[in-house]
């Protein structure tokens, strides 16, 4: 008897990768592995969040969050990152639909919004340091710069990765391997936005209250 289709050997309730029908496709395995990495990255952030939450009131009689944070700039920052997450999603969709020029447009929008976010954050940091509220001023500020700075470093890395992906698409086109890498990039970018929700709530909104 010959096996004619996968449905003959794999019952419908068994997905590949869980024992039925052989190993899962590369795309699934790669994205799942990257998902595990992202979760480990979020656990790294949870340590920084815990440190910040513990040290938020240890200002050593220096400036407090209420004196330092400006909610209007934080709101603009938040919107820039949120919309960039949206455009990154649309860039990924355009890539999957093989719309190359549309992919470039959305990737460019994502880059501009992400760069605006990093720019605002750098000017905020520079302003705080010039006021004498640098990371060495108090435990609160050390924890603040570590948490927000680590997030900013991730976004900067994401921007470099995005440039690299655009170059790959420009040179090699939207091949399956490139789509896989783009999928990882978009997961990374969305995860950074999720971390930022925690940052603007715990650090800035709780800080100015």
């Amino acid at each position, binding site marked *: 008897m010959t096996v004619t*289709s*996968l*449905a003959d050997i794999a019952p*419908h*309730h068994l*997905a*590949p*990768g*869980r024992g*039925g*029908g052989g190993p*899962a*496709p590369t*795309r*699934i395995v790669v*994205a*799942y592995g990257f*998902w*595990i990495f992202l*979760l480990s990255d*979020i*656990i790294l952030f*949870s340590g920084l*969040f*815990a*440190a910040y*939450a*513990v040290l938020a009131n*240890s200002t*050593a*009689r220096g400036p407090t969050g209420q004196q330092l944070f400006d*909610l209007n700039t934080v*709101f603009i920052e938040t*919107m820039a990152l*949120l*919309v960039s*997450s*949206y455009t990154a*999603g*649309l860039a*990924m*969709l355009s890539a*999957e*639909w093989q719309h190359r020029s549309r992919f470039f447009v959305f990737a460019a929008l994502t880059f501009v919004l992400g760069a605006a976010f990093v720019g605002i954050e750098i000017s905020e940091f520079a302003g705080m340091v010039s006021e004498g509220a640098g990371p060495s001023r108090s435990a609160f500020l050390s924890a603040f710069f570590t948490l927000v700075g680590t997030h900013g470093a991730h976004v900067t890395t994401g921007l470099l990765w995005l440039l690299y992906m655009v170059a790959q698409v420009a040179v090699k086109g939207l091949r399956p391997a490139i789509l896989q890498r783009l*999928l990882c990039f*978009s*997961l990374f970018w*969305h*995860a950074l*936005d*999720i971390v930022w*929700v*925690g940052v*603007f*709530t*715990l650090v800035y*909104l*709780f800080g*100015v*209250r």
Partner: protein
Amino acid sequence: MLGHGILHLHDRAPGVRHEESTVDFLTYTAGLGFAIVLTIVSFVIVKTNLLWGPGIPVGLIVLAFAQIGVHLVFFLHMGTGPDHTNNVVALTFGMMICFLVITGSLVIMTNLNANMMDMPHPLR
């Protein structure tokens, strides 16, 4: 790919939907809309007196979790289907670790601070 008829057999990658259609575009747009509304509400309740003072932290935490949920469902396309089991199990484990690290640190440090003797002011 082996053909369309058996696609539903596969596991699903996080961030991926199988039926590529305009539904995806609408999903992202709806997610952006929800996320913007939740962000604006969090900023508004901090800046105004709409919410009873002591209720603001609870409100902020609820809004943050709601927004994280929106991001997971609409941007990362997390679902409850069998093709998502692996992704959701990993996510749940990650969330559990985060919860333990953050609340554990807070509980332990609050206890330690409560057991501390009063310090002269410059040391605090």
